[in-house]
């Protein structure tokens, strides 16, 4: 894509002189160990009830031909992020060099527009109690570990990923591991029809996971007991 053809000026993919970080999640390697989810919780003292990354699973097939599929999820650091477009006060914004979509906590008014705008449920409201971090009652989300990446470390979830399912790097550098993986494998992004240009690329993502199945309507009973407890506690 050439500079002139770029649809949205905000996009950094292939923008010369800029980095565009991305994550590749190779679902063939994901063992559903949840290490990523917990490492991220620790990194940010994320309170109970909310997550920057999570690993849903589905049991797929009929006995005895059954598989278990995991689909690690996090903010896609969309190149064209609707959350940023929707924030009235630019509390969420995109960092041009790197493509991170970040939060300015001190500015956020907590209107939840960005939450409503994100097609991926990647954002959440921080509850008023946390262990030791004073930031509460504002919207939070995955930062692509901005503070680590800018110190030349991979994100915490990538660092601990047992299956090495998560790989992180600069997609604008053709020699990076992520560029290599994206170039040499068929990749998927979630809900491409939303035009968000996600920068979390999946290898081998299972359609049972990426699409709304019928059970989306017949709310899976597996979840219902939990969901109602959750709603009761947070008084929703």
């Amino acid at each position, binding site marked *: 894509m050439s500079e002139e053809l770029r649809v949205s000026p905000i996009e950094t993919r292939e923008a010369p002189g800029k980095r565009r970080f991305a994550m590749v999640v190779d679902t063939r390697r994901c063992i559903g160990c949840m290490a990523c989810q917990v490492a991220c919780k620790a990194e940010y003292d994320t309170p109970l009830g909310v997550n920057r990354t999570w690993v*849903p699973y589905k049991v797929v097939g009929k006995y005895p031909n059954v598989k278990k599929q995991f689909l690690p999820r996090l903010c896609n650091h969309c190149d064209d992020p*609707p959350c940023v477009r*929707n924030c009235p006060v630019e509390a969420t914004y995109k960092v041009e060099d790197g493509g991170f979509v970040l939060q300015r906590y001190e*500015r956020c008014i907590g209107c939840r*527009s960005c939450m*409503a705008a994100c097609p991926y449920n990647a954002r959440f409201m921080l509850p008023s109690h946390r262990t030791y971090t004073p930031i509460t009652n504002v919207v939070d989300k995955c930062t692509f570990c901005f503070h680590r990446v800018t110190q030349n470390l991979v994100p915490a979830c990538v660092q601990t990923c047992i299956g090495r399912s998560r790989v992180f790097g600069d997609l604008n550098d053709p020699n990076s591991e992520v560029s290599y993986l994206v170039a040499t494998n068929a990749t998927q992004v979630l809900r491409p029809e939303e035009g968000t240009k996600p920068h979390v690329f999946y290898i081998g993502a299972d359609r049972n996971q990426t699409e709304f199945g019928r059970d989306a309507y017949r709310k899976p009973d597996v979840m219902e007991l939990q969901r109602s407890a959750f709603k009761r506690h947070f008084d*929703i």
Partner: protein
Amino acid sequence: MGDFVWFHDVSWHATYAIYFFIIGIVAGLTFLSFLSWHNEALRPIRASSAWGAFVLLAIGGLLLIADLSQPLRFFNILNPFYLNFGSPLAWGALNIVSFGIVLVVYLFMLRKGGGGGRWMAGIAALLALGLPIYTGFDLTVHQSRPVWNTPIIPVLFVAMAIASGSAAASLLAGSNAETRATLRQYLLWSTGAVGVMLVSILGTTHHGGSAQELTYLILTTGTMGLIFVGIGIVAGTAAPIALLLAPFGRQQLGVVLAGMLVLAGGAALRYALLMGPQQLQTLY
């Protein structure tokens, strides 16, 4: 349960629906107050509807602010350095604040009397028109949510604002027959328009892909179905139209009853239109 599951919850809760409802009435009442400068029949409710709008605006505004998790930062939204003109909420905030100011000036002028009120009413009505439109846009811009993302939503919200405004005004109108007749007309036409738009929304939603279809199912079955179809469409849209067309609908009690049904329907519709399309994604 099972081994472990993860799930999410809706972003915008019921408070938002109440706000939509109130702000719709505010807009409707403001139109009526403006129209009273052009239609003598509405003259009796000029002041009362403007005052009604003011009170409701105060309530709605407080509700909106209280619903923010950082209410004290409400002023950030007016900070020109922070303002994001891409966001309908930002426009909305400007809209609502300027509307509030104009409304206060208008009320002031009404008290003082004199000709300026007519012009102020015009400006207020224009800004009031913005209220349902911006709240509609609030939803429409969310491309990922079925129903919300139909461009007809702002138009629907305008029609619902007129309907709810007229309904509220019919309660203020007292026994003035002329006023009642005019309001009856407004109620009839605006509710009719709401009905037509709902049909088109349901039709396109049902016709859409799986996400739309699932949302259609969510909106039309179970508790949500009861609220949306039962209260919103049947009791709150079809029934008042039928009532208003019937001879009884020309009487004072008939119009008031229809107005109450429209109000109930308006509340239900806003709730369902806000919550229904958020359900599916909580499972994603």
